[in-house]
């Protein structure tokens, strides 16, 4: 019996991965096929991008500040408190900015996508849309994926900048460091590889969180309870995948650029 259930579990897993890949591929394949739902794209971009601004700015600022406090304490032990700027900008741009922004947007929008699409599934609105001749992958899923990728890219840049600013505020006003030294330090040490890593991550995270959100939404089963389950799973799975893919990207970048 356990062997048999192991067997069906494995099959279910494979089927889920297959469905997920098909959904992503078909949604993106629609990018170049008419009709193009421009209005839906703009609407989603507004919802995801503009809607996430406050939370991204606030978390970015305070994380930058926290980083400055933590690192200056450690650095001053070695008499290297002057390198606070470098540490903050490094961590923000390569790691914290992309990951935290993606996690925040995932909490806000992967859940939103799963619950919105899930409710449409259980109330047969998705079936109705198909019956009316519209491909929901084109009208609902594609705009969400594209606008998440684009918006997360810019939100991450913003978060990085605000984080460095937050670190700067802490360094100058609380730790009594020199502002120009901090800033000089912050950008002098950055290399192409660091920037590239920081900009590639949001593209991949945006894809992951939007496709996971849409996948769980479109595959909702079992009424309102199912919608709740889909929402939770979307956030959990997308968060885990964001962090796991972060690790893989870092490993690849080290292999590629040596840092």
């Amino acid at each position, binding site marked *: 019996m356990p062997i048999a259930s192991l067997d069906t579990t494995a099959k279910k897993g494979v089927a889920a991965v297959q469905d997920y890949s098909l959904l992503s591929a078909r949604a993106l394949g629609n990018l170049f096929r008419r009709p193009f739902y421009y209005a839906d794209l703009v609407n989603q971009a507004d919802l995801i991008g503009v809607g996430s601004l406050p939370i991204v700015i606030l978390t970015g600022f305070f994380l930058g500040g926290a980083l400055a406090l933590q690192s200056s304490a450690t650095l001053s032990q070695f008499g290297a408190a002057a390198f606070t700027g470098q540490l903050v900008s490094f961590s923000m741009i390569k790691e914290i900015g992309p990951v935290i922004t993606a996690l925040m947007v995932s909490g806000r929008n992967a859940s939103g996508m799963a619950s919105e699409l899930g409710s449409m599934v259980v109330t047969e609105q998705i079936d*109705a849309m198909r*019956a009316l001749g519209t491909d929901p992958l084109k009208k609902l899923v594609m705009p969400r994926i594209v606008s998440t990728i684009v918006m997360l890219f810019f939100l991450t840049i913003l978060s990085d900048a605000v984080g460095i600013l937050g670190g700067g505020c802490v360094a100058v006003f609380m730790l009594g460091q020199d502002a120009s030294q901090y800033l000089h330090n912050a950008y002098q040490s950055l290399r192409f590889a660091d920037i590239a890593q920081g900009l590639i991550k949001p593209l991949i995270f945006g894809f992951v969180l939007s496709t996971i959100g849409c996948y769980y939404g479109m595959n909702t089963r079992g009424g309102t309870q199912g919608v709740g389950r889909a929402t939770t799973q979307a956030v959990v799975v997308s968060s885990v995948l964001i962090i796991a893919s972060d690790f893989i990207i870092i490993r690849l970048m080290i292999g590629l650029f040596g840092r």
Partner: protein
Amino acid sequence: MTVAEMLAEKPANEVYPDAPAIRFENVSIGFDGKSVLEDISFEVKRGETRILLGPAGVGKSVLLKLANGLIKPDSGKIFVFGFEVSAMREQDLYKLRDIIGTVFQEGALFDSLTVRDNVGYRLTDEHVPEAEITERVTEALRFVELEHTLDKLPSQLSGGMRRRVAIARAIITKPSLLLYDSPTGGLDPITSTTIIELVVKQRDVYKTSALLVTHRLQDAFTMVSHQFNKETNSMEPLPDHQNDPKTSFLVLHQCRLVFDGSTHDLVASDDPFIKEYLS
């Protein structure tokens, strides 16, 4: 010629002029190992209205979704206007569905769109000018006597009104085939009669082929025994207790089609299940 090219050339109902509106050939489907429909075969000829009866949970809604290509059968073939929907690509199905109107059991209106945008959904998709959409939506809503609800959201309507909006959405593009899933389910007798009148109007005025699911036998018999009078714009009984020859019955019971025939044969049937169902 591929299916896509054929559909691009002319309306889907003209590609195979001799094919019936719907044809099921030995269709079976099950969910999670449990069989729901077994070996179902029947036809809906053009211009015909077929009423599908059966107890709750027997698979009537599943059958309508199969006819629309929303789900695929486990075995068997399904043809709509000669196109094999059970083997078509999703993109081609979207094109074929241009000539099919569907009324879902719970209406399935888009709850974030107004009544106008719901009813005019297809027209918006086809980039019809806004003024024309409003005009045609108002006309379709007048057909279901709801033209005053244009700017309301579905949540602001009653169940019967939602059902009528769903009908307006299905008929606005004058489809050649209508699939109604329990259009009168859970409604009071007066609203039900209004809806049945709409269905009869669609049948007698526009000669649309239709497959209609219902739980209410009295509605089914009203449809059979009445016709639509264009002069008075109302439904009236057929003279001399006649039955409409273009309206006939299908009965599902325990996964199978247990009856396929005219009203007369249905009433005269000596199948014990049908006798009990009708009593």
